[in-house]
């Protein structure tokens, strides 16, 4: 279900403006942990741009995910082992990613966003659906093919404590991909690892140190160095900055953007922090109970959310601005996330939907309960999986 874009969407990132340091900022206010002077600000767009009303598409299609499902079987105990209902962690999601793009995936915990990221990378075998990478179907590849695929796709994990082996030095952690893929970089592995360490803002002399000697932000840099070592094209970032303090978080976000520019990377950025996602993404997908509820260009999604769930989610985030905060209407969702083992019929959101509860007639409600809304299609500009999509009664931001 594509919503017709309104002509006056509050959008308009300065197109491709290498936005210079604003005049007011003192020189040296941003010795940004040694990053090279790339163009600040982002420059990749996909889908419809509102400035010209034209659809601008950059880059070839890198990844296509169609109707991807991941169910986890439940074991039942007892004498008769009958298969129980599976947990539908990801239940039919589709999207298309172009080279150099960042797709943000947001949602509450348990909505399946992390599982989706892992299934795309084939860390978990998908239950159904297709994943095409550079036009090739990679669903369920194994063995040699899978290993070759790992050269192209990497992952950055949330927990910088859990994802680094405490008994290995940084040198061997960052050098591991070379050893596994039996690649001998020019000048030797050690020189390459030290170059990577320098690139992500670590001191190359710390080559022989162990993870516990680093702070949370530095560990996340180690994880990033490991992920970019083999020059992949696609990186799935699973909550890469959630465990970090605000000031450190900003350093890591900037680093992720710099290396994206340098290496022409494509990101799937899974996070629950809606502010970070708006900052880093080109497009954003909102997930709820394993399904994509809404997907659109970031400024359109935040400026003109059409799905009641997106509206509720955005309105729930407190803004660091007391005057604005006092004027905002908050859409409170009642209750908790339903179980993904036994999701509600029809539209999975109807049990908590404020529009369902307050705005719809009995007849309309029947449709929500009985009929599953059409999935957000693969190539939607602004896709909404709702029978009664439309702007919120009051502005949510």
């Amino acid at each position, binding site marked *: 279900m594509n919503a017709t874009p309104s002509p006056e969407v509050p959008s308009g990132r300065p197109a491709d403006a290498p936005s210079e340091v*604003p005049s*007011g900022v003192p020189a040296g206010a941003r010795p940004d*942990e040694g990053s090279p002077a790339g163009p600040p600000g982002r420059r990749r767009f996909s889908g419809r741009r509102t400035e010209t009303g034209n659809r601008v598409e950059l880059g070839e299609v890198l990844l296509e995910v169609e109707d991807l499902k991941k169910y986890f079987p439940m074991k039942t105990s007892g004498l008769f082992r009958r298969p129980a209902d599976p947990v539908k962690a990801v239940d039919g999601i589709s999207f298309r990613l172009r080279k150099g793009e960042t797709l943000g995936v947001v949602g509450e915990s348990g909505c399946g966003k992390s599982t989706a990221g892992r299934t795309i990378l084939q860390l978990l075998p998908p239950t159904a659906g297709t994943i095409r990478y550079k036009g090739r179907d990679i669903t369920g590849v194994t063995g040699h093919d899978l290993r070759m695929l790992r050269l192209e796709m990497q992952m950055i994990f949330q927990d910088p404590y859990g994802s680094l082996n405490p008994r290995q030095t940084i040198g061997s952690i960052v050098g591991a991909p070379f050893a596994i893929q039996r690649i001998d970089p020019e000048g030797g592995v050690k020189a390459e690892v030290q170059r990577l360490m320098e690139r992500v803002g670590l001191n190359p002399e710390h080559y022989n140190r162990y993870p516990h000697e680093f702070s949370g932000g530095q560990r996340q840099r180690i994880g990033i160095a490991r992920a970019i070592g083999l020059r992949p094209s696609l990186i799935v970032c699973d909550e890469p900055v959630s465990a970090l*303090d605000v000031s450190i*978080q900003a*350093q890591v976000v900037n680093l992720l953007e710099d290396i994206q520019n340098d290496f022409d990377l494509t990101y799937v950025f899974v996070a629950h922090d*809606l502010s970070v996602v708006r*900052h880093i993404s080109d497009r954003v997908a909102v997930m709820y109970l394993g399904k994509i509820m809404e997907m659109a260009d970031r400024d359109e999604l935040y400026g003109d959310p059409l799905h009641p769930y997106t509206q509720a989610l955005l309105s729930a985030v407190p803004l*660091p601005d007391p005057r604005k905060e006092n004027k905002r209407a908050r859409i409170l*969702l009642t209750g908790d996330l339903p179980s993904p083992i036994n999701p509600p019929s029809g539209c999975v959101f109807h049990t908590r939907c404020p529009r369902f509860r307050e705005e719809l007639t009995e007849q309309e409600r029947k449709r929500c309960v009985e009929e599953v809304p059409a999935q957000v299609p693969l190539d939607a500009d602004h896709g909404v999986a709702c029978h009664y999509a439309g702007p919120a009664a009051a502005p949510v931001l």
Partner: protein
Amino acid sequence: MSIALSVESGERAPGGAVLLSVRDLRVRFPTEDGLVKAVDGLSFDLRQGETLGIVGESGSGKSVTSQAIMGLYRGTRAEISGLISFDGVDLLGLADEDLRRRRGKDVAMVFQDPLSALHPYYTVGNQVVEAYRVHHDTTKAAARQRAIDMLDRVGIPNPAKRIDQYPHEFSGGMRQRAMIAMALVNDPRLVIADEPTTALDVTVQAQILDLLVGLQKEFGSSIIIITHDLGVVAEMANEILVMYAGRAVERGEAEELFYAPEHPYTWGLLQSMPRMDRLRIERLRPIPGNPPSLISPPSGCAFHPRCTFRDDARLGCAQVEPGFEADAPHPVRCLIPRDERTRTFQTQIRPSL
């Protein structure tokens, strides 16, 4: 206690008497590596019915402050000095038995992680009832009724049934509600909420914050909310205290802190946050460097190694320790003269926020 702190501000109800007054609080932990100065000379006041937000990064001493107020470092090796005066009584000087009588009744705490703060072996009702019976001489049946009422108040559906369930049967948001019920069951005059919503989803966070504000209106208690999320304090707090390396670096009315902050660290916090409600203009501006060690903090101003506005030659940021006038309406721990700070904020920081 001391001088009235708040400046007149239009819509806000005038605060009551000063309920909690902390003066020159120091909490130190002796360790093998040296003395960790977790809180180093902290002073603030809190009035009846008001909300104080304490913000800072991890290791800034915000949680240690709250636990010191609760007296949770008694019997440990922590060295505590200073004055924590609650309604005129010095909590640090109280005998253990007297403090026990006040803890939970006058001052209650909501912890960050309800799964580890609730006992997994006892039912939720059991724990709420216990909190009540410690301070009230009532029958079990009356206490149970009180617990059911409380669970109902904090929005737990079907409380008569849920009261007999165990913490693992509750969802994250429900557990946090149960914790709040436990904290409020004795009508405390001060509630300390230490990162009460950090582990929760935004939709649940909104419910919990809403609940806290509603209950505060109803009971008239004061709240100290400790968080790293500036959005949460913007919503909750009348007054905000910014901590860095165990010290207060700036304190003021929420309005002032957000629209006329004066400390370079506060500027850095505001600048490094991505904003959800605006179009993206450029890259984030992180505060360079890492938080300092609390064992050997930097000389002079603790923030000077990361500060972009330091001026060693003129102000001696690396040698001179800036003071903090705890009784002023908007104290700032910075050597830069006030008018210069205000000017810098207006001309350089504000346009980029």
